[in-house]
C-alpha cells in the first residue's frame, strides 16, 4: 500500500470535493486541503497537470502515486487503501451494486437536472427542471427506505458510499429550495430523507466540510450570473 501525505485539491463549495474529505474523516486520515481559487475562470497549473483529461476537482494525491480523479472513484480508492478503518462501501456485492447505481443516477441524471434548474430562465423551463429534481428526490426517499433497512443511514448504522454521494448535494439542495421557494426534502414529503439529512449534517465526519448555506447561496448567485454572462452551458459547472 502506498504511504505518505494525503492531499485533496478542491473548493470549499464543491459538493464533489466534499466527498473525499468526508471519506478521509471517516477513516481518520489526516490530509491537506488545497483550495482551487478560481475554478470557473482560471484553473491552476496544479489542476491542469493533475487532471488533464477533465480539468475538474476533486483530485486526490497520496504519497508518490500519480493523482486520482473522479470523486466516486476516489471514495473507492480511500475505502480500499485504508481498509482497516470503518468501511465505506457495503460488503455484499448486491448492496454495493445498489449503492453504485444510485450514486451514478445522482451524478449522471439528477445533478444535471439540478444545474438546469439553477440556470433556467422563464417559468416553463423552471417548472420542467423542478419536476425532474423532485422526481429524483422521491426516488432517493424510496432508495433510503430500501438501503437503510430501518437504520439511520443509507449505509446502515454508519455513513457509507451513498450517504456521502447524496449528502454532498445537501448544501446545494438547500440553495435550490431557497431560490425557488420550494421544499425538496421535508418532513411531510420525504420524512426518511428529512431525518437523514439532519443526522448526516451533524455527523462528525461531515459537519466541518459541509459549506454554510448562506455563504453557498451568495456564491451561487455569483456563479449563475457568471454562467449566464459567459454564455456557458450548465455542464461546465
Amino acid at each position, binding site marked *: 500500500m502506498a504511504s505518505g501525505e494525503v492531499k485533496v485539491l478542491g473548493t470549499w463549495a464543491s459538493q464533489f470535493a466534499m466527498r473525499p474529505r468526508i471519506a478521509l474523516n471517516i477513516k481518520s486520515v489526516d490530509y491537506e486541503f488545497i483550495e482551487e481559487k478560481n475554478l470557473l475562470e482560471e484553473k491552476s497549473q496544479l489542476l491542469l497537470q493533475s487532471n*488533464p483529461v477533465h480539468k475538474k476537482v476533486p483530485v486526490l494525491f497520496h504519497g508518490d502515486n500519480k493523482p486520482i480523479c*473522479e470523486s466516486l*472513484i476516489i471514495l473507492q480508492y480511500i475505502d*480500499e*487503501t485504508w481498509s482497516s478503518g470503518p468501511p465505506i462501501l457495503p460488503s455484499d456485492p448486491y448492496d454495493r451494486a445498489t449503492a453504485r*447505481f444510485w450514486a451514478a443516477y445522482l451524478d449522471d441524471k439528477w445533478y444535471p437536472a439540478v444545474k438546469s434548474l439553477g440556470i433556467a430562465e422563464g417559468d416553463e423551463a423552471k417548472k420542467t427542471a423542478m419536476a425532474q429534481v423532485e422526481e429524483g428526490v422521491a426516488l432517493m426517499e424510496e432508495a433510503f427506505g430500501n438501503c437503510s433497512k430501518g437504520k439511520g443511514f443509507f449505509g446502515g448504522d454508519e455513513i457509507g458510499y451513498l450517504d456521502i454521494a447524496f449528502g454532498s448535494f445537501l448544501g446545494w439542495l438547500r440553495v435550490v429550495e431557497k431560490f425557488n421557494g420550494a421544499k425538496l426534502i421535508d418532513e411531510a414529503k420525504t420524512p426518511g430523507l428529512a431525518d437523514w439529512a439532519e443526522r448526516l449534517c451533524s455527523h462528525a465526519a461531515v459537519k466541518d466540510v459541509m459549506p454554510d448555506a448562506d455563504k453557498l447561496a451568495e456564491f451561487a448567485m455569483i456563479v449563475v450570473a457568471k454562467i449566464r454572462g459567459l454564455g456557458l452551458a450548465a455542464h461546465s459547472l
Partner: protein
Amino acid sequence: MAAVKLLGAWVSPYNCRVICALKLKGIAYEYMEEDLLNKSPLLLQYNPVHKKIPVLVHGGRSICESAVILRYIDETWPENPLLPADPYERAVALFWIKFADDTTFPIAMMYLITGEEQKKAAKECSEMLETIEEHGLVEGKKFFGGDEINMVDIAFCSVAHWLGVIEEVTGLKAFEPHKFPKLNSWILNFKSVPVIKESLPDIETMLAFFKGRREMVLASKSS
C-alpha cells in the same frame, strides 16, 4: 448457484460489455432479447428508473447500468479478476471505464444525426479518441489490462467494433489508423481475443441494421 439472466439487445455495445464479462468468467446465463421499440413488462419491472438494457438478473434480483453490472459480476465471481488488485491501478482502470461511459455513448447513436449535428459529434468523437490515444493507452502494452484484457478493454468495445460500422453507414470519419497508432493496435489485439470474437455481434448484421435505421432517419428528415 442462483440462475443468471441477461435482458439485452444484440445491437447494444453496453449489452456486449456484459456478455464479454460473463463469457470471460465462464458464467452460464439465459439471454433474453428485448425489442427496444416495444419494451417488455419484465424490463420495465426490473429497471423502472432507466427502462434500459442491459439488465442482469441474479437470483431474482436485478442489477442495472452496464458499469455497475460489470463490477457486480467481478465481485460475485472473483476468479479471473477483471480489475487490478492494487488500489491505485484500480482507480486508474475505473477512471477509464467512466471515461468510456461518459464519452463513447454517442457512437452507437450517430446514425440518428445529420448535418451540423453530425459534424459536431464527429469532432467530439475525434477528441475522445485523441484523449484515449494520448492518456489512456501505454506504448507496448497489448491491452488496457496489460497482457490480458480487463474491464477497461471491455468497456471500450464500442470503439473497437461499433465505430467502424457507424463510420461506414454515415460516411463520418473520426478514426484513422495512422492518426491513432496505439488505438489501432489495441483494436486489432482486442478483436482477436477468442472470447471477444465470440461476443461481438456479426459485422454484416450490424451494417444491415444500421443502414436500415439510417435510411429511415434520412427519409423522415427529407419528408
